């Protein structure tokens, strides 16, 4: 982790990381507003991927975060989130890199969807091995909005994890809601306890304030 990332961590802490209680009562107006607004995925129209690409991204995301005793990526709408982000949030270069990566993976697999799950997973692991020197893996390279130089496999993993942890399903059925109403700093961590869900991703929008320095 470099100093800037550490510092940004600290800056964000000043404000707390914002966890949403399941049962927190919103004011009537807020309920109306948010209710009318609905889920992000219900508001977007997806037109970027072909049917085959959709199936491929769905298979890849489920291999990354599978359904276990808790819901997995497909249950949580991760494939739709990925398509929405690649089409509307990525810049042109990032989108081109993602689409190229997806096409190359399919070509290399000689039809990704024709492979069985073990082979599909091995292909993802191979991509990750080949990207081993990417900055994306550097410890602490997380307190930024986005790593525009991330290789395709890293773009894909990050979107998958965000799409899962920030989804209603991931936040409520995998992560734990933070009980609100009081602060208690001396709570025993239970062996199976998961971290609290978060309201907005803890990412600084800050530009670099100093040269990065590795830990």
């Amino acid at each position, binding site marked *: 982790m470099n*100093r800037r990332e550490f*510092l*940004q*961590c*600290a800056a964000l*802490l*000043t*404000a707390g*990381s*914002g966890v*949403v*209680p399941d049962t*927190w009562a*919103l*004011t009537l*107006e*807020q309920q109306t507003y*948010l209710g009318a*607004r*609905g*889920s*992000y995925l219900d508001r977007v129209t997806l037109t970027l991927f072909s049917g085959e690409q959709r199936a491929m991204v769905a298979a890849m995301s489920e*291999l990354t*975060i*599978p359904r*276990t005793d808790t819901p997995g990526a497909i249950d949580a709408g991760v494939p739709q*989130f990925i398509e929405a982000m690649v089409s*509307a*949030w990525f*810049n042109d270069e990032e989108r081109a890199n993602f689409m190229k990566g997806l096409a190359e993976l399919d070509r290399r697999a000689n039809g990704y969807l024709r492979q069985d799950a073990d082979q599909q*997973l091995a292909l*993802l*692991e191979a991509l990750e091995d080949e990207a081993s020197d990417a900055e994306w893996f*550097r410890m602490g390279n997380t307190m930024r909005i*986005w790593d525009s130089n991330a290789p395709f496999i890293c773009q894909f993993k990050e979107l998958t994890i*965000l799409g899962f942890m*920030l989804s*209603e399903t991931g*936040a409520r059925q*995998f992560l734990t809601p933070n009980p*609100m*109403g009081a*602060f208690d*700093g*001396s*709570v*025993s961590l239970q062996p199976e306890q998961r*971290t609290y*869900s*978060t*309201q*907005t*991703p*803890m*990412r*600084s*929008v*800050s530009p670099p*304030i100093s040269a990065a320095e590795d*830990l």
Partner: protein
Amino acid sequence: MPENNATEFDAIVVGSGISGGWAAKELTERGLRVLVLERGKNIEHGKDYIGEHANSWNLDYYGMPDRELIASDYPIQSDSYALMATNLQYWNNDRLNPYLQTEGKPFSWKRADVVGGRSLLWGRQTYRWSDADFKANARDGIQIPWPLDYKEIEPWYSYVEEFAGISGQEEGLEHLPDSKFLPPMEYYELEKTIKKRVEKKLDNVKITMGRCAVLTREHKGRAPCHYCGPCHNGCSTGSYFSSQSSTLPAARATGNLTLLPNQLVSKLVHNDAGDKIVAVNTIDTVSKEQRSFSAKLIFLCASTVASTQILLNSASSSHPNGLANASGALGKYVMDHGMIGHMGMFVDHPDMYFKGNRPNGLYIPRFRNIGRQDEDADFIRGYGYQAHCLRPDWQTSFNQRGFGAKLKESLGKPGSFWIWAMGGFFECLPYESNQIRLHPQKTDRFGVPLVVTEFDWGDNERKIAADTATQAEKILRAAGSLYHILSKPEQMSVGGAGIHEMGTARMGDDPGKSVLNKYNQAHEVSNLFVTDGSFMTSASCVNPSLTYMAFTARAVDYAVKQLNEGQI
């Protein structure tokens, strides 16, 4: 010339942030009919806090910041920790409302653009100044002395604290006087351990719970904090002090308040003698309609930079260098608090967790140059640390290798260590070369001359910044940190980023060297009071908002008495 549709009020307050809200409350409660002019758009307390408790999955891009929008419209505001997808609507649009920085001398001007101003977005840390702070300039022979001492302002601190509601722990420190406190917030287990270790090993270092304007029990009809976390989305239970939750409702309750949003004040117009404001000229930021309002008293609370802009833009033949600026001090001596971060990793208490999000940290009060110059200090004045505790989670470790159930489970677990981050906040000296000016030609979309900023830290600040690292290392070692990261002085914040900009219309006894007298009244213009950060003659190292509140309340008390006695 604006149309002559002037309306008579007893007092006009420019700005509705922390200072403006207090001015409005105090003036209306004394029976004056008050007009508050706010540049920003109107929002209603509670109802318009649209990001409060919003779920990530309801937000566009699940709350990931819209990079294009940030780059085009919020390039200055976006380096604040408090700017989020859920509260963009409170912030100044840098594209629509720009200013100019001097190359190589950056100054980051953080502005709100709503009724309530930055009181919605502030860090809520509240510390009294000490007598030593008010005597610092005189003692060190720096610039001009303060025209008053701690004793004079002390009752006003108590007065504003009693209304605002400040939680904290009494410590009995002379150099950081206690406020009238509500109970302090609770500690994380790690913080208890750190406090015990540090106070045992380092005699001069005290650790206390952050003092903040967040309620720990019901206070004046406002609910205690429910620990949801991000206060700066707005708090419909009014658990933190803001103009929206506290002072404006009190002012409204008197029936004496008129508040007009979208009113940019372009100029103050004075009488022939040049010693009284007779009109406040405004431009409607939506319709561009120009209007003019008048009142017996004018309270300028637009924030340091904006108030300075208004005064400079009100220059006339009798005030050629800007209104109330015979001294030439107006716009000079800009200060901010420098910020610099250090942190340590702790493996204590891996089996402990927490419930709720505490919107507050620990505070390490100034311990350098107390009462006398420390022998090993190559700087004057000092600093305090604000310290925060973090248990890392998937958000700081998602870039790990692997796929499948193992990755999923790993991402779901809290990290194996804690981070304790110490933010040094240090005093900045007043330098004449640090300035706010108006551009001679360039204007904004309303025809108002653009602000030009010029700011740089001095040697003293760089030396203090270096010392924050030296002392932080001692503290982190004593605290039991296994690994620490210390910032170098050149990594301190840029000017303005502390959002404690102040000092451009300083107060003093000598009208030849200051803009305001000790009651925040302009030496040259009897019905003009400036009570935002502009009045500050030095900066101390503690967060300034509480001091602005106290001086504003005191200035109103004085102004109304003067008005009633026919002195204004």
